[in-house]
């Protein structure tokens, strides 16, 4: 029983980290209509900045620099590349982002090389015990930070002018601009938010129980894609639900791999998120909480 509970809690806390990444995908998509395939590299960039800076300036200042750095890179990608596309279609933007991803990832891989850089998180490899259940402290902190981050996002989008303006711009850009809302600013805000979320997620993905920053982190960030898609492309609450569902699924499938091996074969944990995504999309094509394409005939 305690093994099961440990797996569930592990899955939920990992799921929350995934949902930070998935929310970044969703925010960029709603504010600029771009499928940001470079998001995984931005996650890696955030973690990398913390890893190289913390020995000299300490963990928290390094974290702050990483947040700004990831946000800035997002804003620059949007301002310099996406907005200057000659043919600004979603397809062209998606291909552009694949290109940006390759460039960023190659450069980061060159800098990291074969090392695994520790991020130097103050919670180290410590473990929190609740009775028989043991959880890495990093995971508990991650869960707390994520909950705070989503509460802040909720406040931003429902209680502030900027957030309501961003939602209006996402719903109908030309009309929002007739209300005096500057679309270039709402777009920049969206990219910056996504960058911040990515950097936070990057640090949690690379601290214990993960060994540290390695280029493969960009790939594990892609595990957030099924979470984003099954939550609905354009929904932040959907990203949270999707992240939890995917986190739980992969933790349970991996945790009980020994029992499942005869039926599903080894390594099914990596495939399970996609199976869940496909099953959900078969039943609900616009995801769990995505807005349906409403067409009046």
């Amino acid at each position: 029983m305690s093994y099961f509970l440990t797996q569930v809690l592990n899955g939920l806390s990992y799921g929350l980290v995934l949902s930070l990444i998935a929310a970044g995908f969703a925010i960029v998509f709603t504010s600029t209509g771009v499928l940001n395939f470079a998001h995984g590299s931005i996650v890696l960039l955030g973690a990398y900045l913390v890893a190289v800076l913390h020995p000299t300036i300490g963990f928290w200042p390094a974290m702050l620099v990483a947040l700004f750095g990831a946000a800035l890179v997002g804003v620059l990608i949007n301002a310099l590349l996406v907005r200057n596309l000659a043919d600004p279609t979603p397809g062209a933007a998606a291909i552009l982002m694949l290109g940006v991803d390759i460039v960023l990832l190659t450069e980061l891989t060159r800098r990291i090389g074969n090392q695994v850089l520790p991020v130097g998180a103050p919670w180290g490899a410590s473990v929190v015990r609740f009775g028989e259940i043991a959880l890495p402290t990093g995971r508990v902190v991650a869960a707390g930070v994520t909950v705070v981050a989503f509460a802040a996002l909720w406040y931003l989008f429902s209680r502030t002018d900027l957030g309501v303006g961003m939602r209006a711009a996402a719903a109908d850009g030309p009309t929002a601009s007739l209300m005096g809302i500057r679309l270039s600013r709402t777009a920049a805000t969206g990219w910056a938010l996504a960058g911040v979320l990515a950097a936070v997620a990057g640090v949690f993905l690379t601290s214990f129980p993960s060994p540290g920053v390695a280029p493969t982190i960009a790939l594990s960030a892609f595990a957030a894609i099924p979470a984003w898609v099954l939550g609905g492309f354009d929904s932040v609450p959907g990203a949270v639900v999707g992240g939890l569902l995917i986190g739980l699924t992969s933790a349970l499938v991996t945790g009980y791999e020994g029992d499942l091996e005869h039926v599903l074969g080894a390594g099914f944990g990596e495939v399970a998120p996609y199976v869940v995504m496909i099953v959900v999309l078969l039943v609900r094509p616009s995801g769990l909480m995505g807005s349906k394409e409403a067409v009046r005939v």
Partner: protein
Amino acid sequence: MTEPLLSVEHLDVSYDGAVQALRDVSLEVAAGSVVAVLGSNGAGKTSLLRAVSRALGSYGGAVTGGTIRYQGVDLAGVDTSTVVRRGLVQVPEGRRVFRDLTVEENLRAGGFTVRDAKARDEARDRVFDLFPVLAERRTQLGGLLSGGQQQMLAMGRALMTSPQLLLLDEPSLGLAPLLVDQIGEIVTTINAQGTAVLLIEQNAVMGLRVADRAYVLEVGHVTASGSADELAASDDVRQRYLGAAAPERPAAVVVTEPGIPTAEAPKRLAVEGLTVRFGGIAALSEVSFAVEPGTVHALIGPNGAGKSTCINVLGGAYRATEGRVTYGGDELTALPSHRTAGLGVARTFQNISLALEDTVEDNLLVGRHRLMRSGVLASALRTPGARREERAHRATVRDIADLLGLGPLLQVPVHGLSYGNRKRVEMGRALAARPSLLLLDEPVAGMTHGESQEMAETIRQVRRDLGLSVLLVEHDMPFVMGLAEQVTVLDFGKKIAEGTPAEVQRDPEVLRAYLGASAA
């Protein structure tokens, strides 16, 4: 003389550097006045508003000549956000409320540029005073409001900035007469509170009633201007936009032999006890009527009466909750929509749904799809049989285009056509399938009186030459009166009257529900 609030001088606007939308347009709006710009669809009215609110860029348009001055300042190089901050706000055509935002959040987005919290609260209170229904529904989503309420929300959203000049693009479009009256009164009230209004309308009756001055715009050019009273008295304007001089046509039953026979003779369409529910809301409840073979039958009613729902069930897009629809011996309610087409039932759509980049000919050929026999392979190899068949289809399409007056436009891409011609292409595509029953969803929505008279003539001709039955859904009452033999009236999803146009016109229930306060 004091400087006008807005002055537009010799304005030229073009799209993509090629299509000229406005030529040498000049107009003035004095502070505190209401100015109407009348004209049919495609006249360039919306382009004029976009030029003034500096929003042309996002639609691929640009000012290529002339000047726009607001409060004495040239607007060249000024962006939308800046003109909004200076008190010039546009309410876009089609209302465009933010559907997933609540009423209150919509208003908040409208007041985005107002930094002073107190000024904003006052503006919101004024909006709620003006539109009490918005205060009642403040926590509802914008998308759940009715058409009239959405128009109010769109206007309220713009008023959140307490503008000096309000630009209204077709506020009466798609609204029933009762609501149009109400919107007109609201424009007058807003103006009385000190806001100048520049109003774009194709409903000239409404436009001339609320305006002090008016301009008539035709194909990008101002063709008449003057005080609203002068224009309302002008013969030309009366005939084209007000319908005053047009004779009432009796609905004559055509007995001549059809020129191009339909593939099959029309059959009787019977609707029995049709009920359609969305969630808990009944859009139609127990509606029954029949369309006799070879007649024109009209389905009318105010907005939200269930007309479009009904035609969507007949065309197979929606499923009936209860009841059945039969065409001859076949039950339509049991078939998917592609099978419905196979029975000889074809439809047009309220919001035009054509492939914009393709030519008129290609759009019409789509309608021939169900009659095409050559397979993919034969077509790709261009076998003699496939080529022969293609020639035959193109010939039929040409005949239909000639019948609708689209002959010279066959090779023109649809996006280059006027609204009226797009409506004709829609009808042509439906006719290309050689139906014996044609379903027309609001064929004259958004047209001026003159254009809808032409459309009525086209429908008469189609019925005569092709010998088919027509079921048309409309809320333009006079249009239906001159055209249909039988009329069924819906209100709130129920049938409230049925009979000849003359009978229905006298029915007190219909007058009350439909024609508005002035007629009852």
